[in-house]
């Protein structure tokens, strides 16, 4: 097509810029939510949280971000409709990126509840349904995604509830919780390592393995993941051996030293949280970008099966890190200061529950909201009588985020869509 030979480079650069902008927004705002619990419970300093976030967000995006990216890229819209008009798909994805990015900016400045995931999904559905045709949206997939927004906080809450209950029965109810905490903490660390390795092997490294002509069966994957988990647990045990009982602290609160053990554990769950977040949320930025690059590079042919250039995931990861470095640390500080009631023994349960849910969703290719999932997880711990006071108004604000963000993203996206169509078409 003429459009792509003439404007191809410009379109790709535009998409790259918008994608980076979007990734910046994720890094500036979303990551702080994911990591704020660790900072608030004083398990990590802001500096440590940023460092962990940079490494593991990037790792999550690069190693396990593929499935969600492909959902955003070609799962929400019906590719067949666009076979004869690939230009519309390109304009649409560009508008979706710009719309979601703009909306996030506006909403953040106004202090409205926003979710990156909801913005981008709303924007894509918007341009496809209104700009092209209602049939251009893969409604069954969209309804699965929307259902996952309801289900994910519930699942995370259930896991966190169970985790905290296990902490109670294994550690807290006993005479000497400090000794028992040291004994059982590596078990949870193993779970963290196993989880991350499993998702990475099953989803992220699939392509790498294929390239080097290697394949792992499911049981082999389990073995490798377990070995990685044991490695993580050993590292954790080493760190735990440095936590000595401080009797001065116990005078004020008999559980002060137990919490110090959990603070070590929380370093690991913070890593898993950042990994999970990277694996799910980077797709919001790079999914549409991947779609644009794909169409332009093939000269207008929408390939059903195509490999995604790795530079796209790298760009997304870099955008998140950049957002963290420029703005995210400030937000993280604010959030961390506000969360003072969360102790590491609860924070860890909430984080691990949320991370497990998000990573699982990433593996299935479902774009969900990390923040909402974490809220569900925290409520789960609260239901186990773990947290002093939770403000249930937050649930209302989540609901609002759905009602407001979806149409807003869609509306802006439609606007930009006709604008691009007018400029390039």
């Amino acid at each position: 097509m003429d459009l792509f030979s003439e404007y191809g480079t410009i379109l790709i650069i535009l998409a790259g810029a918008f994608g980076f902008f979007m990734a910046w927004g994720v890094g500036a705002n979303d990551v702080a939510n994911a990591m704020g619990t660790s900072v608030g419970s004083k398990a990590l300093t802001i500096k440590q949280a940023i460092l962990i976030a940079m490494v593991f967000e990037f790792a999550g995006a690069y190693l396990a971000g593929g499935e969600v990216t492909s959902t955003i890229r070609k799962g929400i819209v019906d590719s067949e409709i666009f076979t004869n008009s690939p230009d519309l798909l390109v304009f649409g994805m560009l508008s979706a990126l710009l719309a979601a990015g703009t909306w996030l900016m506006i909403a953040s400045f106004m202090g409205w509840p926003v979710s990156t995931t909801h913005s981008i999904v709303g924007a894509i559905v918007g341009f496809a349904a209104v700009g092209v045709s209602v049939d251009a949206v893969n409604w069954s997939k969209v309804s699965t995604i929307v259902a996952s927004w309801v289900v994910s906080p519930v699942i995370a809450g259930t896991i966190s509830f169970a985790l905290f209950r296990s902490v109670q029965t294994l550690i807290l109810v006993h005479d000497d919780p400090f000794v028992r905490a040291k004994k059982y903490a590596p078990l949870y660390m193993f779970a963290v390592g196993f989880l991350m390795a499993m998702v990475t092997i099953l989803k992220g490294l699939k392509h790498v393995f294929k390239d080097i002509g290697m394949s792992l069966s499911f049981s082999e994957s389990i073995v490798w993941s377990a070995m990685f988990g044991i490695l993580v647990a050993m590292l954790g045990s080493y760190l735990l051996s440095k936590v000595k009982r401080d009797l001065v602290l116990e005078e004020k609160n008999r559980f002060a030293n137990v919490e110090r053990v959990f603070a070590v554990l929380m370093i690991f769950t913070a890593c898993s949280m950042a990994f999970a977040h990277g694996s799910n949320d980077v797709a919001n930025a790079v999914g549409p970008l991947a779609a644009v690059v794909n169409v332009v590079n093939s000269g207008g042919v929408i390939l059903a099966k195509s490999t995604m250039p790795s530079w796209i995931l790298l760009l997304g990861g870099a955008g998140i890190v950049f957002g963290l470095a420029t703005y995210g640390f400030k937000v993280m500080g604010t959030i961390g200061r506000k969360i003072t009631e969360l102790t590491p023994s609860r924070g860890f349960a909430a984080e691990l529950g949320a991370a497990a849910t998000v990573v699982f969703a990433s593996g299935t290719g479902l774009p969900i909201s990390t923040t909402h999932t974490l809220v569900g997880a925290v409520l789960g711990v609260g239901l186990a009588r773990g947290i002093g006071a939770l403000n249930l108004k937050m649930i209302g604000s989540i609901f609002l985020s759905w009602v407001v963000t979806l149409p807003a993203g869609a509306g802006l996206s439609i606007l930009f869509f006709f604008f691009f169509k007018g400029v390039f078409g």
Partner: protein
Amino acid sequence: MDFSNSISNLFGKSPIRPLQEHMSLVVNCASHLESFFEAVIADQWDKASEIFDLVASNENEADDLKKQFRLNMPKSLFMPVSRADLLGILAQQDNIANITKDVCGIVLGRKMNIPNTLQSDFIGYVKSAIETCEKARKAIEELDELLETGFTGQEVKFVKKLIRELDAQEQKVDKKERKLRQRLFKIEAEIPPVNVMFLYNVIDNIGEVADVAEQIGNQLELLLAK
């Protein structure tokens, strides 16, 4: 930027610490009773009046804390303990300060005399009433540890033990009250009737302080039961 979607909005202010602060304030207020009555017995009314001012300012402060506490307890808060139970405990705690102030006020206003033969028993009675408040405070101090364990296990047993001690202490106060009343009864004919009436009243009120302290323990037990 204000991030109202941030996870931090999920966390309300835990009511536990403010409740404990309120408790230690009112127990501190009640503990002035001892030095107050010592001053009364020694006929040092200036000193007694100073102590009364302390008690009054403590009571005022406790009132402020109580109001703040209530303002920070919207119905949308989700807590591991029932809101009504917490507010009930708070009201009882506040009563300790209120009754203390009333007692001191009456004694100071009427420049009441404690009969010589009753004096040592009276101070002992006041001391054990204060001790009851102390024991209740100790139990309330365990609330954050209770929260830490999620209201389970050894910690619950420990708090139940504290509450049993509190109950025992209150019974001691009861015994002393009966004894004191009997001794007052024996000499009441020698004292002007209105003064006798107020003496009984003061003894009653001090017993009430201990009673309220015990009730705090009982309400705490209700929290554990759920």
